[in-house]
């Protein structure tokens, strides 16, 4: 995929010229054009919403909502595998999750956990809803999209944020919260998938999405995002 094609597919999250219906992977950029936060945008005709985990709360916000901070810094890529004709079903699913979800912030994504249809969080390894803003989006997508894992985090490398000292910190947090865990299992899930990698995943339709496919796209996506803010 050329950088130009990538650039054309990443769109500023704002009212479209004509009514549009789609679900998109969205990121919030900082002043340097780095993606620092992520969410799911849902365009439904003339209006749009953002569904995201702020690090504290799960919110489904209207475009006009003052709680949506930095709205003009959001960019998105359409997630093609969610059919535009199923937008009401997707929104209903988001509303149900927002009623019940209670995530806590941590660099944890094991690719197994997901939001059950009841809005409850289903986990395989860690008892407790530990995730980043990206993990939240991935969990939601994983639950809505037909069978199979959306993204395989075991293919992701260990980064500065997920190295041994930080992992130890995570374990002590779990202990503090009285969470049961199996050290061997959760080590695999202590991963950070960055907001731009999440945005890049929307360019792939193979599943599960693996790091080696995301990497080359993400390198270009990061360049493209910098350019947006420099303009």
């Amino acid at each position, binding site marked *: 995929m050329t950088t130009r094609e990538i650039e054309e597919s990443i769109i500023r999250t704002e009212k479209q010229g004509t009514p549009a219906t789609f679900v998109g992977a969205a990121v919030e950029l900082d002043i340097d054009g780095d993606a620092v936060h992520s969410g799911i945008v849902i365009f439904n005709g003339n209006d749009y919403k953002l569904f995201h985990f702020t690090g504290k709360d799960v919110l489904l916000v209207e475009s006009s909502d003052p709680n949506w901070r930095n709205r003009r810094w959001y960019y998105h890529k359409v997630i093609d595998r969610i059919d535009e004709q*199923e937008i*009401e079903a997707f*929104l209903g*699913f988001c*509303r149900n999750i927002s009623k019940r979800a209670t995530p806590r912030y941590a660099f944890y994504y094991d690719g197994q956990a997901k939001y059950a*249809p*009841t809005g409850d969080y289903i986990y395989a390894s860690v008892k407790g809803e530990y995730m980043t803003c990206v993990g939240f989006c991935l969990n939601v997508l994983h639950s809505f999209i037909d069978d199979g894992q959306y993204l395989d985090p075991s293919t992701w490398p260990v980064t500065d944020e997920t190295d041994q000292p930080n992992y130890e910190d995570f374990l002590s947090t779990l202990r503090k919260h009285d969470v049961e865990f199996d050290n061997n299992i959760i080590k695999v899930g202590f991963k950070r998938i960055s907001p731009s990698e999440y945005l890049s995943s929307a360019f792939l339709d193979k599943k599960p999405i693996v790091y080696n496919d995301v990497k080359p796209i993400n390198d270009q996506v990061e360049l493209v995002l910098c350019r947006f803010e420099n303009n």
Partner: protein
Amino acid sequence: MPEDKLVLRIEKNENKNTSLSSLNIEEADALISLITALRDLCNNVPDNTNLKIELKEGSAMASLRGTPSSMAPIFDNFDEVIKRTSRDSVDVESWRNIQSILQNKRFNIEANIIKKGVKTSIKEKVVAAKTFKRASSWTKSNVKLEFYSGKLNEIGGKKPNIHLLVDDSDIIVECSETEAVYVSSKIRLYETVRIAAWTKINGKNEVIERQFSEVYFNDEDFELYRSLIISYKDSRLPAFIDKMYDISNPLLDNKKYSDFRKFMSLFIHKSWNLNVLKTMLVISKDFSNVPQISNLRERLNIFYLEQKNRLKTIKNKNKSDD
């Protein structure tokens, strides 16, 4: 699991045995038309990955076969053509072509449906029927889920059905043998029976047919689901979807799978909005291995794919019209 089949077999032409290995031109023409019709019927259902067309010696046999769930839409579409309620030009034309070959007196052709290993001939009804035509729009039948509560008057029969006495009128609901056995195992004759049935109404507002959907054993369930379904036409889609979650969340939280199944069975019908079908699929996703749910979910998925396919076709058509 044995496959279900639609079998068309040219046995004789002008009283001479037909053989696939030595067809004359007339026989070849007939066989080509039959295969073409089977191909088109197959092509006209959303999920035909499990359907196969088979040709076999022993006279000249062409059949369409596949898993029961993948053959179900083929049989359903045939029923609509026979009842003249089908609005689908491909189905009607394909069956009209099969019909004209079956009606040709020079041939001796067998036409059978095989379901769960049981063979039923469809030749007589296809030959006897008036030339198949698409239902015109004013006769377009309208299907609604209706709820009936009344005295159980009669149940079973060769063509299984349930008779309820509702305000002195006899309401007849068609059902399968399994459904008749199930209802009669739970409710005795002359007791109150509460039923949801897909009710087909023609352009003159007359009931053409009622098809069993679900039976309820208490008033609470009956009223809950009745009011839910009534609310569908008055509420906006998002509000209705929220109601679906409100009902299913506690049932699934408490692992009340047989109650959940009752709820789910209301949505096993092609007339539902695509988003309602998808929501039901999402709701039941994690429970596809629960025995009470798995089978139902498979059927739900077929209606979902059918509906999705239909909407895609309409959209593409509108695009090309632009």
